[in-house]
């Protein structure tokens, strides 16, 4: 639901870098987003297309890299990725402990962009 303001923020950053590097056209933009974020790729692209019309980023393709949710086991300190929506059904793959904590999965970055 909040993809519109998020993509507005992405566009502002992209246009700033495009102007800084004096490029005439942005072809693609790579984002790294934690799986804990509820962003829908389809809507991200649609909103981005809408917002970027008439700019050098018009037509640019968004490439989203999803960063996994990573948990750490409280018993053996093993770090492992798992489906964050099923985290109470599983145990630590290394020692079987069921008590573990989330350590990452909230990345929210613009990595780079291809432009000419």
């Amino acid at each position, binding site marked *: 639901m*909040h993809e519109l*303001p998020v993509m507005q*923020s992405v566009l502002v950053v992209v246009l700033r870098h495009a102007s800084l590097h004096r*490029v005439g056209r942005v072809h693609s933009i790579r984002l790294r987003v934690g799986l804990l974020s509820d962003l829908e790729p389809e809507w991200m692209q649609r909103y981005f297309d809408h917002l970027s019309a008439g700019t050098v980023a018009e037509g640019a393709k968004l490439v989203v890299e999803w960063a996994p*949710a990573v948990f750490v086991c409280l018993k053996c300190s093993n770090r492992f990725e798992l489906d964050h929506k099923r*985290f109470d059904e599983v145990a630590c793959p290394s020692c079987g402990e069921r008590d573990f*904590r*989330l350590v990452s999965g909230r990345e929210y970055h613009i990595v780079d*962009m291809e432009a000419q």
Partner: protein
Amino acid sequence: MMSEIRVIEVKEEILGDNRREADGLRESLRAGGTFLLNLMSSPGAGKTTLIARTIESLGQRYRIGVLEADIESTVDAERISALGVPAVQIRTGGFCHVDAFMVKNALDAIGASALDIVIIENVGNLVCPAEFDTGAHMNAMILSVPEGDDKPLKYPLMFTVCDALVVNKTDYLGMSDFDMPAFRQRVLKLNRGMAIFELSAKTGRGLDAWTGWLDGAVSSFLGRPAG
């Protein structure tokens, strides 16, 4: 002829502009001695009732104001104003969340420098508000018993960004299959430091633990002894 395609490193945070605004807001509020609390939940979980109860309990010790972010109506703002504390409506322009820029305008409108505590009643929604830093010094959320104990699985992000969780409507516990120990364990897996308060804002049961905890947090923020 067009030049070659090249890769330009960006390495910037999405919503970095909002984060910077929020950081600036947090700092200036701290310097001015105003504690900003961001309260989030689903619609109908009991935000307005909890705020009203909190004001009843702490309103003698602190000057409190409320920023209401209800999307359409002014019903909540009227209910809070009836308690004799200042309330300002945040206009979200139809958005599903409040961001730091909106909060800054509303803080100016309410006259935050004359207040000890400002509470943001965020838009009723467990998804979007979790993504936007409001500039608050503390994020708190409400999960009400009728919503079910599976919500940390469905909306994990919200549970990771909050410092405190109020489990409201505990007067419904006997009528539901809400599994409190399982719920607590799910929450703590996502957020080990979460302070959890089980209460009924309606009956008042369990409310003292929440208001006492908030009192402690605010008094240490303001550098004065808690009541």
